[in-house]
């Protein structure tokens, strides 16, 4: 069998097997539901608008112009960055399997190069398809022409990036001279582009105020026509062709650019095997780290644990301790939060004239900032802090072998992120309360009472969010990302939608009894004892108690599901 035929067989067989595997997974109703939801979403969001485009589905001219400008800019940036960024080595990347299978095979370097170029072509077609489904409405009125043109354009850009890496490798052999030559050429091109852009801005200065949307449209049109974007315009002329006649007129240009780039790649080709092996090893190492760290590749520094783990006592505390250690050593979300707070303080101080005004601003801004951050953590915290079953997904087998019941495992896994989130939220709410008291005024009492209520409610809401996220791991392990890989397929898309919607629905449904009880307690106390705003802490405590009770019940159910979970039937990397 010749190499091209072997490669064709490999691709077809791989695609067929992938589809078969996904179809086999659909035998389980939960995955079938995901596929149906994903299919409906894709149809309603992207396919249907494409079909019914004639009924006014095309974006307005202004929006189209902006999208086209971004497209041209994106193409130019990709091409320029191929010359400016990254190391001076061939950009062809092979995975470890390809290195092991193809490099010792009786295949010439030219054959391998053609293999990678063909892969690039397939990748370009896939990219063009995705762009057509998701973005052609914004860019062009002709989806089929857009797809064909985008395939050719993306292939040309791929060839350009490959050729650039070859030329850079050759230039690097000349040491400093080669580098100077490359950067000299880059600087010259960039300068020309900047001059061209400035000349456009001189002719069409940015309007100080927009009286009519047409003004902006004219400016964008003149920018598009400027010589600065000329190379990019050449590239995107084909996908942006407005009709068949225009497409056919532009086709020779597109094909010519492609052919020139192909000849350039073949003539500029340098030995790439060594670089390909290095890249393959780098990718394999990253993959291994992703696998071992549950999808997070992070630089690890050994920091002390939050507390010493005693050898005796409740065994599930070991999992809590382990996940807290993981949070301490892998986490970066805390730094983001601290940066937000420091940023708030700096902005408050900077906006004041003198120390007194700066302090006033700090008091004024920091209370709502802290309260807002504590509230936002309820929404984003459970997704961001993954030191739970989501992190341990690649180790489900290990968890199953531990001398713990499913309920203990689920509860212990939930505990660490809940604790980290809860402590952070409590800290933020306390800070907000202190700032509000320091500020004084009419609403101080409301700040304090609402804060006391929030101290209970916010951590409980976060706990609910974490529970829903972890429930997905136990109920749909095959949809999550085992071994650091991304699960693909229609049903995976549906699963993500279901998880998103499910999280919201589960939270809302779960919160409904809590809200009702809180309202009952709050209004009841106010009516009976005339507590006023001081009923808020009691209402908050009641709501939190309901939420915690719901999660506790959920943990019992999820624990049973964990005990019954058969990792071997899920088709995930969790079962070898």
């Amino acid at each position, binding site marked *: 069998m010749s190499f091209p035929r072997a490669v064709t067989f490999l691709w077809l067989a791989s695609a067929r097997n992938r589809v078969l595997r996904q179809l086999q997974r659909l035998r389980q109703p939960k995955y079938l539901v995901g596929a149906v939801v994903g299919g409906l979403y894709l149809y309603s969001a992207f396919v249907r608008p494409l079909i019914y485009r004639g009924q006014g589905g095309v974006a307005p001219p202004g929006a189209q112009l902006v999208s086209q400008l971004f497209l041209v800019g994106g193409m130019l940036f990709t091409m320029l960055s191929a010359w400016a960024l990254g190391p001076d080595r061939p950009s062809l990347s092979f995975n470890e399997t390809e290195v092991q299978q193809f490099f010792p095979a009786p295949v010439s370097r030219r054959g391998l190069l053609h293999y990678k170029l063909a892969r690039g072509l397939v990748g370009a077609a896939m990219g063009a398809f995705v762009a057509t489904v998701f973005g052609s409405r914004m860019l062009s009125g002709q989806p089929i022409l857009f797809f064909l043109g985008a395939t050719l354009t993306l292939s040309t850009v791929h060839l350009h990036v490959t050729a650039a890496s070859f030329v850079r490798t050759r230039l690097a052999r000349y040491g400093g001279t080669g580098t100077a030559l490359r950067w000299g050429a880059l600087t010259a091109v960039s300068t020309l582009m900047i001059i061209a852009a400035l000349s456009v801005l001189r002719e069409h200065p940015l309007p100080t105020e927009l009286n009519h949307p047409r003004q902006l449209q004219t400016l964008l049109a003149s920018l598009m026509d400027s010589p600065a974007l000329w190379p990019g315009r050449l590239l995107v002329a084909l996908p942006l062709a407005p009709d068949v006649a225009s497409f056919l007129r532009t086709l020779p240009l597109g094909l010519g650019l492609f052919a020139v780039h192909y000849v350039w790649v073949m003539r500029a080709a340098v030995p790439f095997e060594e670089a390909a092996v290095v890249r393959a090893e780098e990718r394999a190492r990253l993959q291994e780290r992703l696998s071992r760290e549950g999808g997070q590749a992070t630089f690890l520094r050994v920091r002390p644990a939050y507390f010493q783990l*005693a*050898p*005796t*006592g409740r065994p599930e505390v070991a999992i809590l301790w382990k996940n807290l250690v993981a949070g301490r050593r892998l986490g970066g979300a805390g730094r983001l939060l601290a940066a937000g707070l420091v940023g708030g303080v700096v902005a408050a101080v900077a906006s004041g004239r003198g120390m007194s005004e700066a302090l006033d601003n700090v008091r004024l801004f920091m209370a709502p900032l802290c309260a807002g951050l504590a509230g936002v953590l309820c929404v984003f915290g459970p997704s961001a802090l993954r030191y739970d079953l989501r992190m341990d997904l690649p180790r489900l087998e290990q968890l199953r072998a531990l*001398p713990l019941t499913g309920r203990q495992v689920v509860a212990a896994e939930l505990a660490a992120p809940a604790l980290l989130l809860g402590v952070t939220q409590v800290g933020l709410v306390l800070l907000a309360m202190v700032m509000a008291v320091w500020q004084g005024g009419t609403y101080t009492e409301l700040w304090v009472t609402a804060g006391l209520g929030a101290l209970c409610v916010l951590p409980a809401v976060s706990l609910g969010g974490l529970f829903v996220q972890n429930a997905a791991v136990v109920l749909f392990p095959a949809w999550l990302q085992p071994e650091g890989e991304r699960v693909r397929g229609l049903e995976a898309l549906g699963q993500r939608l279901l998880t998103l919607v499910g999280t919201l629905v589960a939270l809302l449904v779960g919160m409904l009894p809590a809200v009702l009880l809180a309202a009952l307690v709050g209004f009841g106390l106010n009516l009976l004892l005339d507590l006023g705003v001081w009923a808020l802490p009691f209402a908050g405590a009641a709501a939190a108690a309901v939420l915690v009770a719901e999660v506790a019940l959920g943990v019992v159910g999820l624990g049973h599901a964990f005990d019954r979970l058969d990792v071997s039937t899920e088709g995930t990397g969790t079962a070898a």
Partner: protein
Amino acid sequence: MDWNPPGEPRILSYMSDAGMWAPVLDVEGLEKTYGDVRAVQGLTFQVAPGEVLGLVGPNGAGKTTTLRCLAGILPPTRGRVRVAGHDLASEQVRAKHALAFLPDEPRLFEYLTVWEHLNFVARLYGVADWEERARALLDEMELAGKEKALPGELSRGMKQKLSIACGFLHSPRLIILDEPLTGLDPLAIRRMKASLRQRAEAGTALVLSSHLLPLVEELCHRILVIAGGRAVALGTLADIRAQLSGPDGSAASLEDLFIRITSAPPEPRPEREAP
């Protein structure tokens, strides 16, 4: 208990707390199916304290699935597994407390140091004197001095040793090993064999799966050969030899026997082969 040389007849049951003779591992009619694929079918065997049972079979025979069922990782489709007298289905925590499962690929927590791994395991199993035991195990596994190292700083063999040390820490009554010597150098293999032998002498039951037939021949008292998910031979090497070799095959090695057993024409089966 004395170490009985492999091949010698052995007493296969020991006195339980209730005064009954009881094995550490008691497997009865174990079956595991994946859809319409029957990976393991009707396995029944027992392992006594201090006994080493070797599990051998061709690739895809169902060895790893069997071991995972024994360790409580996979729920059996049918059958019963009792560890130290505890049913793995109804008393899973007690049963798992008595066993350790050592997979061929060590799965460590990248963010815990060597010492913290042992601390973690100690808490899970409630090992009060864990520090003393951990030091002894690290010495035994030649990991002394690596206490503060993260798994990312260890070689493949060292990770395997750490995984084994974690498994040994709580002195389990049953140790299940899936290809335990993968990644170890010759010296470490020798030490590991001695360590396993020592633990068996101390009364620990071992179930060991390996393709290294000389290892199985050297360490195991009895051998369970499985093919297509079924037990095709169970007994001491001498038993199997006598059963299969005939009068002229008394000197046949385990490798000869293995090839003879597993290359025999399979019984007609309606199901597909196990993955």
